[in-house]
């Protein structure tokens, strides 16, 4: 296992470097935006004098680099600082928000990943016949619609007309699991529809690619059935590309939920980030941005490692 440990260590080091670059980029971009937190708090009518006072108080007058390195030093010691606008500890806010976002992403993933792979396998088994075309058609339609559109359509039918699920996905720690699940039913449905097509099509393409191999013919000539051939001989060799696309979609479930969280007023990271951007609350934006980047990088490292582990040439060297 030694070479794999080394590889994981390398990837993690590279990931840390990437994260540093991402934080600098996010900081630079928020600096480049017109206006700042003081302006946002005091509004358009603020006098130059009051603005200057507030900036002095918030420490916004110091050079950008100084502020960046201060923030970086904080983060390295586990301190994300406090929000500029409401003086709340960012770490505490992020912890509860992040757990909500992960809760939503977890259930969306739990449903969408097995479903996508199963649908992909069915599509391969009945390639170019009606089940394949039906699966492709429906999933492509759902990916082609903007997610806020899907969200509003679902709200219209299931919340407004049928009263099956709430249109505001508000959850709190006091709720029990079933109530929580009921509350997030619609956002989960939206997320599943958004990520399903991509994963299903990739599963289908990856397995079809493997199906061209000579060893598939060997399997067919052993008298195995179509599903046995796909599940035993094709799927194990298609895991690497499938895992990669699954991880990209997992990352999307965490990082890309902004729109869905806003539509359903869900108290997650996405909404938190949008609020912070509106208020020019740079420390919060930075914290959210860096966490999103970390999630993205970690999931990709995970995908890399899994694809390497599924390759017998790397797992069992000569």
């Amino acid at each position, binding site marked *: 296992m030694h070479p794999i440990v080394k590889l994981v260590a390398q990837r993690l080091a590279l990931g840390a470097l990437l994260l540093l670059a991402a934080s600098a980029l996010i900081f630079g971009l928020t600096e480049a935006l017109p206006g700042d937190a003081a302006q946002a708090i005091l509004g358009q009518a603020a006098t130059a004098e009051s603005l200057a006072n507030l900036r002095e108080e918030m420490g916004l007058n110091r050079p950008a680099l100084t502020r960046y390195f201060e923030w970086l030093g904080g983060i390295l010691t586990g301190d994300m600082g406090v929000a500029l606008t409401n003086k709340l500890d960012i770490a505490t806010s992020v912890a509860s928000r992040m757990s909500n976002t992960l809760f939503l992403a977890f259930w969306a993933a739990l449903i969408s990943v097995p479903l996508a792979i199963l649908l992909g396998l069915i599509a391969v088994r009945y390639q170019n016949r009606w089940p394949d075309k039906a699966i492709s058609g429906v999933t492509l339609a759902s990916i082609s619609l903007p997610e806020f559109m899907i969200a509003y359509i679902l709200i219209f039918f299931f919340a407004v007309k049928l009263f099956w699920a709430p249109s505001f996905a508000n959850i709190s720690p006091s709720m029990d699991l079933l109530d929580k699940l009921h509350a997030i039913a619609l956002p989960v449905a939206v997320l599943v529809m958004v990520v399903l097509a991509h994963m299903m099509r990739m599963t289908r393409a990856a397995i079809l690619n493997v199906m061209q191999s000579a060893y598939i013919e*060997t399997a067919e000539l052993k008298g195995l059935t179509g599903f046995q051939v796909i599940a035993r001989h094709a799927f194990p060799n298609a895991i690497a590309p499938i895992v990669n696309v699954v991880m990209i979609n997992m990352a999307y479930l965490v990082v890309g939920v902004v729109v869905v969280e806003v539509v359903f007023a869900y108290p997650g990271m996405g909404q938190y980030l949008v609020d912070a951007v509106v208020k020019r609350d740079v420390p919060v934006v930075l914290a959210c941005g860096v966490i999103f980047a970390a999630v993205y990088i970690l999931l990709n490292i995970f995908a890399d490692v899994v694809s390497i582990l599924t390759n017998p040439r790397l797992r069992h060297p000569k």
Partner: protein
Amino acid sequence: MSDTLLKVRGLKIGATVYPPGEKPHDIDIVHGVDFDLERGKVLGLIGESGAGKSTIGLASMAYGRGGVKITGGEVWVNGRDILKTGIKDIRKLRGAEVTYVSQSAAASFNPAKKIMDQVIEAAVEQKKFSRKDAEQRARTLFAKLGLPDPDNIGERYPHQVSGGQLQRCMTALALCPEPDLVVFDEPTTALDVTTQIDVLMAIKEAIADTGVAALYITHDLAVVAQVSDDIMVLRMGNTIEYGDTDQIINRPQDEYTQALVSVRSIEHEEKAPTPEPVLSVKNITARYKGTNFDVLHNVNVDLHPGQTLAVVGESGSGKSTLARVITGLLPPRDGQIDFAGRTLSNDLAGRSLEDLRELQMIYQMADTAMNPRQTVGTIIGRPLEFYFGLRGEEKRKRLIDLLDEIELGEKFMDRYPAELSGGQKQRVCIARSLAAKPKMIICDEVTSALDPLVADGILKLLLDLQKIENVAYLFITHDLATVRAISDSIAVMYQGRVARYGSKSEVLSPPFDDYTDLLLSSVPEMRLGWLEEVVANRKMESAGN
């Protein structure tokens, strides 16, 4: 019940083809073939590519590759016509009554699964054996087939064993379910000759021990003569001749069979070395970037103007690496290359246009060596423009000369590579290299991908052109028959070293070194009993030592 295991009557096979720029249409591949195979017998199916031999072999399992469909006739296995049964019955037949050994075991084993799981899969799935019994049987077969460490080799993954070993594992896979019939589809074609002998003997003994019947498909008559009781010669989907092995090999009736038996009609008188070699490879040692071992060790060879030096060896012997070093693609660690009275730069970047022009190359795969979107005229015309600046009528005249020289003619000027046969493609590549008026051409396995009769034509052409253009060939090949046919001098390579080097008559005359002896005695000869003879000799030798 009669002893007939497989009875084929009027077998017709077709396929849908999708030619570029045309409507898809159906073509016939096999036009009504009849044969019988008794239990425990071996029938050899022989022919060139496109003869339909693999297609017929797979039809005995009611299988069509890609868009191939069985369109008519009867295939009786164990007393029932398998073309009339449903897919469920066909599945019960595949992997149980009839099994298959493919040409490339490396591609036919699933890289993600252990060898043992794949070998026993059919036997267990078809409920012929319990898992435990199947594994025991597989280990017995591994031992019988001469695989090293038969008790544990099944725990390895396919990439962890060599090509020859994997081919034997594939034979074990086919024999494990105790089938009545095994289809061997070119099982030794991808192997080196010295490995081929072992695999061939293992297959032959396994057939004899288990009493299984076999269809043995190959393009190599000498190989099929060693293993089969009967031979059927196929050409373009038709039976040309069908008889017992002795008759086909020793008294072929049909003209085409006679040509197959007597292929390699070339007689080439060896030329004496000249005082000034055109190419002199001196003390070349080379290794690939990022590795820490040399693939060439102190190689020294000379090539004389207008002559042919054959570089012969098995895969991994370093012969293609030598070509890369001479062309400058792989700068050597040590040594120098003298060419046409000057010392060449070791690095490609340091070579002049004149160096490049005088040293041309022809490749094994003519297909991938040509731009599929350029016409033959553009392909051959490019060196005329590049090296000589020829334009217009002048260029056209030279193009026609070249096309005549390769026996294709002017009408091929506007054709695309896809419209040419394998042999024609290789001819175009020859013309392209000749267009540069080189002093020397490196021919890297240029006939290996071609059928024997076509290859023969290419070799004849190369020899004729050598006389006209006085060009020297460095001819890289693993095929000793080719070497005999065309060379003036020979370098036998083994593990990156020149094991034997000299004029053709010297190298091919005893006394031999051990490796050359092994190599020469491994080339299948077209006579009955050759395989047993060689194996017996080797056993005696190793007993004597």
